[in-house]
């Protein structure tokens, strides 16, 4: 399907420098989330995988500070979203990073898909109906069907 082509070019990473400063302030708030989020993990999962546990928990605050330069979305927030999955036992920090990056790519893709309909209606502002159209037309977005009510 032609509309899926846009999902192919997803490598734009340039505008990160200008973002850094803002991220630093968000980062301060987020690292608190991070430490809070780390505690429940240690309770829910027994000491069996202690080494991996650390990769999710204690290490993350320090990593987060550096990773802020690589991701725009806060890793801590994405991690707490991931933890909503009751079946999730442990996730490495790399996995959290990958999901965060994937979500960023996803947002850009969905925005572009939606804009196709905006442009089709000869408009400049993306409306909710454009997003709905994109979701109903693009195959790999089918999982969102009905989720945005």
């Amino acid at each position, binding site marked *: 399907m032609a509309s899926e082509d846009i999902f192919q070019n997803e490598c734009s990473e340039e505008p990160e420098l200008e973002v850094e400063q803002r991220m630093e302030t968000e980062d301060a708030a987020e690292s608190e989330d991070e430490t809070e989020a780390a505690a429940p993990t240690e309770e829910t999962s027994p000491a069996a995988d202690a080494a991996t546990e650390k990769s999710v928990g204690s290490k993350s605050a320090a990593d987060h500070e550096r990773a802020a330069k690589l991701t725009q979305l806060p890793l801590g927030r994405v991690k707490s979203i991931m933890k*909503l999955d009751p079946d999730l036992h442990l996730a490495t920090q790399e996995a959290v990073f990958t999901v965060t990056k994937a979500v960023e790519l996803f947002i850009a893709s969905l925005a572009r898909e939606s804009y196709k309909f905006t442009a089709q209606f000869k408009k*400049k502002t*993306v409306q909710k109906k454009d997003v709905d159209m994109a979701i109903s037309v693009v195959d790999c977005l089918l999982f969102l069907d009905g989720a945005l009510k």
Partner: protein
Amino acid sequence: MVERIEDLNLPNAVIARLIKEALPDGASVSKEARAAIARAASVFAIFVTSSSTALAHKQNHKTITAKDIMQTLTELDFESFVPSLSQDLEVYRKVVKDKKDIKASKKDAADASASGSGAATEEAT
């Protein structure tokens, strides 16, 4: 599964920026559309996580790794994300490693008997 809807919120400012960067100059996004995209992003994160969990479970391992995420994305028809993500992951690994090295050398210089640095270095591996 989801108790508080606020847990699913990603920061609005960042969402707005990501959308803006993806669209051509002069284009804008209505509030409702931005909210919809933000919610879609949260749903996407959960969708990918639960699919990865299922995948890891099938393969009899408990810890979700970056590799699981990549494999899941491929299965979910988001394979176009994978090359870019692999690159990002390389950079991430390098940054983590560099940080580890800097930390280690700093600690070494400051205090030869820095047992704390040893522990931190092990964790980061």
